């Protein structure tokens, strides 16, 4: 199903928030469709949290509007209807701080009652959501004894406790170890499969690129890119292809030159040198190309034809995103990079 056929359930129009003379968010526009995961990427202080706080009405926008779907219609979010409109949204804003002397059972029970979850089902629901993040054994322990990662997990489940349709999560994976990050990624995908919509912010490119249907990049309060992962990769026009050889050559430079000669005609880039480099940390060669699948296939064919002994040939998605992210954030618009505005306007779908 193409993305643009899905119904819009949150629409942010020209959102602007100022703190004195500092503009934290400026004319921010974003449409969130039902059932998709949208990742909001940006450096520290870019305006991610401020945007989410405005949706949660923790901050009132100075300009702009927030429209949220309710009973089949998009309704303008105001102070009067916020309780109704935000009722089916679960929020996790900033690093969660809990009351230290309370236990997850007491806190989640309170939140569930506030959100109108059926009282009889609350104990079971609490056990379910805590099991999701592996905190079952900590259900009656005081939050003050929790690690930062455990508090973060509790923050995520506190947004989930009332089984909302929409989840708005600000840096949900911050402070989590790799295993926990993987588990939360899987959890988000499962929630998506249940029809839930997730809008999450992060500075962890890999986490976002792995699960998001569309990615929005924000910098200095402005949306500078918003599209599908695939289209952003295409827009980057400068993707790193990782090539791992069976054995590391003795003369790396010689092999690099050899690879470059093979690959150069098929990169789709205007560059005529420095296409291939060696990554000493990963002990792999990296080749730049335009991200087109046809070019990628041709490069592989040529390398195989020349009997290069390859054991791994891949394009890590996060790398592509990272390149684009850095280009956009740094404001470097080389001739190889598409204009950021074009990335926002282009709603090319999958």
């Amino acid at each position, binding site marked *: 199903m193409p993305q643009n056929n899905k119904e819009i359930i949150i629409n942010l129009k020209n959102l602007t928030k100022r*703190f004195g003379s500092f503009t934290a968010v400026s004319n921010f526009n974003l449409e969130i469709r039902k059932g998709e995961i949208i990742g909001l990427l940006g450096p520290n202080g870019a305006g991610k949290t401020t945007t989410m*706080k405005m949706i*949660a*009405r*923790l*901050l*009132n926008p100075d300009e702009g509007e927030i429209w949220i779907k309710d009973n089949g219609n998009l309704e303008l979010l105001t102070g009067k209807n*916020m*309780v109704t409109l*935000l009722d*089916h949204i679960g*929020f996790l*804003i*900033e*690093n*969660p*701080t*809990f*009351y230290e*002397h*309370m236990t997850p059972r*007491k806190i989640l029970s*309170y*939140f569930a*009652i*506030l*959100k*109108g*979850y*059926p009282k009889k*089902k609350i104990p079971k629901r609490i056990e*379910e959501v805590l*099991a*999701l993040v592996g905190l079952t054994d900590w259900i009656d322990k005081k939050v003050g004894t929790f690690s930062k990662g455990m508090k973060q997990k509790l*923050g995520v489940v*506190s947004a989930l406790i009332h*089984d909302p*349709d929409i989840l708005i999560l600000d840096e949900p994976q911050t402070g989590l170890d790799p295993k926990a990050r993987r*588990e939360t990624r*899987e*959890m988000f995908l*499962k*929630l998506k499969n*249940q029809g839930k919509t997730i809008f999450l912010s992060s500075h962890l490119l890999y986490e976002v690129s792995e699960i998001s249907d569309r990615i929005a990049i924000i910098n200095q309060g402005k949306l500078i890119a918003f599209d599908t992962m695939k289209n952003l990769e295409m827009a980057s026009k400068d993707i790193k292809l990782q090539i791992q050889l069976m054995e590391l050559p003795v003369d790396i430079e010689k092999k690099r030159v050899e690879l470059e000669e093979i690959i150069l005609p098929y990169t789709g880039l205007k560059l005529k040198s420095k296409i291939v480099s060696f990554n000493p940390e990963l002990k792999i060669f990296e080749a730049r190309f335009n991200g087109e699948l046809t070019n990628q296939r041709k490069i592989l064919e040529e390398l195989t034809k020349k009997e290069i002994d390859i054991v791994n040939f891949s394009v890590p998605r996060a790398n592509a995103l990272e390149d684009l992210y850095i280009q956009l954030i740094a404001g470097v618009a080389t001739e190889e990079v598409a204009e950021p505005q074009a990335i926002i306007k282009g709603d090319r779908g999958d």
Partner: protein
Amino acid sequence: MNIVKEETIESRMDKVPVGLKKSLTQVGATVTFEFKRNLKNMFISFGIAVGIYILSLVINLIQEGRGAESPASAGEYLTSYLGMIGFFILIIAVMFAGNIIALDYDKHTGNLIFPKITKGRLFLGRVIARYLLSALAVLVYYVLIGATALIKYGDLPIEILASLGWAMLYTFAVFALVAFFSSFLKKTSTTIVVSLVMMLMVFNLGTTILMMTGVTWEPLFILTYYANIITYSVGYSVAGVFVIGLPTERFLEGSIGPGVGGDGPTFMRWITPDVTGAIIGMIIYSVILIGAAYLFFRRRQQK
């Protein structure tokens, strides 16, 4: 990782309380949660009540040990324990109302609470729960001193109930003042310091200035003035005789200068408000401060 979807959102939402029922459910849940959250503070407040009681008891015992005449009646004996009631109430109010709002912004706990509940309902639930806990601590103190007087004298003046009533009303007024500061000050610690300075210094300074300048207004706008009725409602001493109930003369006149009744400027010291003035004054104080606290809280935004 199993997420069991047992029912549709629509079917679940049918059972969700709406309107007034939802408001009452949320306020009720907040009251219960606040009781649990402040359980530790409750025991500390009981500890403070016992501490102040023991301190007063020890002072009384030392005085009696040094040959001072024992109070002739239970009422007079009780007033010796009520000397520190104003300070005790202040400590209790600061303990329960100091972080009532400021904490949500100081430690960002508000990020989790909102927008699950409106600020109005949250504030109402918190005020109910925390005031009840404050009142409970005051009650514990009265039970202790009442029991002591009963053991010592075999009876208790009924006026102790009036004193308890005034203490409850005064507790709410002081609670409202602290909550007011908590609604706009950034940190809980700042709220506590400002509240203590206001109650222990600013109001007392105001009283002194009024007294020295010879102004004749009753200082009904000074919150600490209302604490006097808590003690005076039990009784007062005139020329060494303890009289039960509120004094008929509510202020003293004097002059500053050499000797009693000197030629210096006259001053007027108000002893206690009357019943009507105390009720109206404390209610007005409480309503204005709690109302202002709510309005500040409502407008306050998370940075």
